[in-house]
């Protein structure tokens, strides 16, 4: 049951993106357009998950994509696949934005955070995304409730582990451990290697 199911679009299966990014690093705008097409869905998805607000998430997604163009010459493959690099950047930027003062004021109450629908329940037409969603959903089900809540609140809502602890009324140490245990289980279920 730990069998990793391989599906298209996983970060490890994107050699094309590596080549494209190489061309982008040489100033190739057509290559950038292809990179854009490949990543914009999840980049915007992450930003929207964390920020909720449509306008703000678009703004952040655009910033991230321009940043990908600007810093492509500094991308280092040994630090992870291009997709990982880009999605990590997208999450980082979204989190930075949500933690900035203005955005913080507009954040949901604890109750709303806990009651939220998982972001991946949004309807999408794309087959690849649906497969990815199915797999992530299936693997999230292998986590304990506390692991799952900790991981999704931290990642999809951009909360710090302290905020997660507060929201779930758990000790800080417990949340740290749940985040790590949860990720280990998720990593193994998804068959992620780095």
């Amino acid at each position: 049951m730990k069998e990793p199911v391989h599906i298209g679009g996983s970060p490890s299966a994107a050699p094309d993106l590596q080549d494209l990014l190489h061309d982008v690093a040489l100033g190739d705008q057509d290559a950038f357009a292809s990179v854009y097409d490949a990543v914009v869905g999840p980049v915007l998805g992450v930003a929207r998950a964390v920020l909720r607000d449509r306008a703000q998430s678009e703004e952040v997604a655009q910033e991230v994509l321009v940043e990908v163009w600007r810093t492509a010459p500094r991308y280092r493959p040994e630090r992870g696949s291009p997709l990982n690099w880009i999605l990590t950047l997208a999450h980082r930027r979204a989190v930075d934005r949500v933690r900035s003062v203005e955005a913080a004021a507009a954040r949901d109450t604890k109750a709303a955070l806990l009651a939220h629908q998982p972001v991946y329940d949004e309807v999408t037409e794309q087959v690849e995304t649906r497969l990815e969603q199915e797999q992530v959903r299936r693997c999230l089900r292998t986590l304990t409730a506390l692991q799952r809540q900790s991981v999704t609140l931290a990642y999809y809502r951009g909360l710090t582990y302290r905020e997660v602890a507060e929201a779930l009324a758990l000790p800080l140490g417990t949340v740290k451990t749940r985040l790590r245990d949860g990720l280990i289980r998720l990593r193994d279920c998804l068959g992620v290697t780095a």
Partner: protein
Amino acid sequence: MTTTDPHALTGAYALHALPDEERAAFERHLAGCESCAQEVAEFSATAARLALAAAVPTRPAMREEVLRRVATVRQLPPAAASLDRARRSVWRGRGAGRRALAACVAAAVACGGVAVWQYQRAQDAGDRAARAQRQVEELAGVLAAPDAKSRVARIGDGAATLVVSAGRDRAVFVASRMAAPPRGKVYELWFSDGGKMRAAGLMDPDRSSQAVLLRGKVDGASGIGITVEPEGGSRAPTTPPLALLGLPT
């Protein structure tokens, strides 16, 4: 379980769930903890899967906006430390036009490193890297200058492009697939001041494709020349020039 064990923070770190000060502390730990780094890499890749699952449809207009912005945003030069790695890259086409030229140079930088020559006293490596970085930026600046003009010439089976920015008063020599100089020799570049040759730098003998920022200002030179010289270069040409190029006008 102890809450101070830094290893336990890999998960929170990979999910960007550490407050800034704790993140900085963990990054210091990470620098010396290989197993943590491996775990963080795996967790980051796992988090990327959570991102993929969150993909949403996007407005086509956003694509146009981003592509438009990108056309006006200048890319960072490769980090000095990554020049070595980039060296493994492949030379790509050499078309005409500013963008293609910039790409050529990026490729030449990638293939050959920038042959930047100094005759100064030995410097520490960091200093040299910073200097090389400035040279790369200066070089890129010449190529991207609005007043940049270029001239292409064939040298043997290879090609050379001379790019000059009058505003910056600097010139860049881009060589592509030039034959290697004889053993123990180097190609030296010269500014020609009405027939009088002024040393303008050496090319890297181990690279067939490279971009060289010519040493010194153009300062009214009428052209450039390239000669074969003994290792280390000469103060004045000792052989007839392989090629002379008039400055592009």
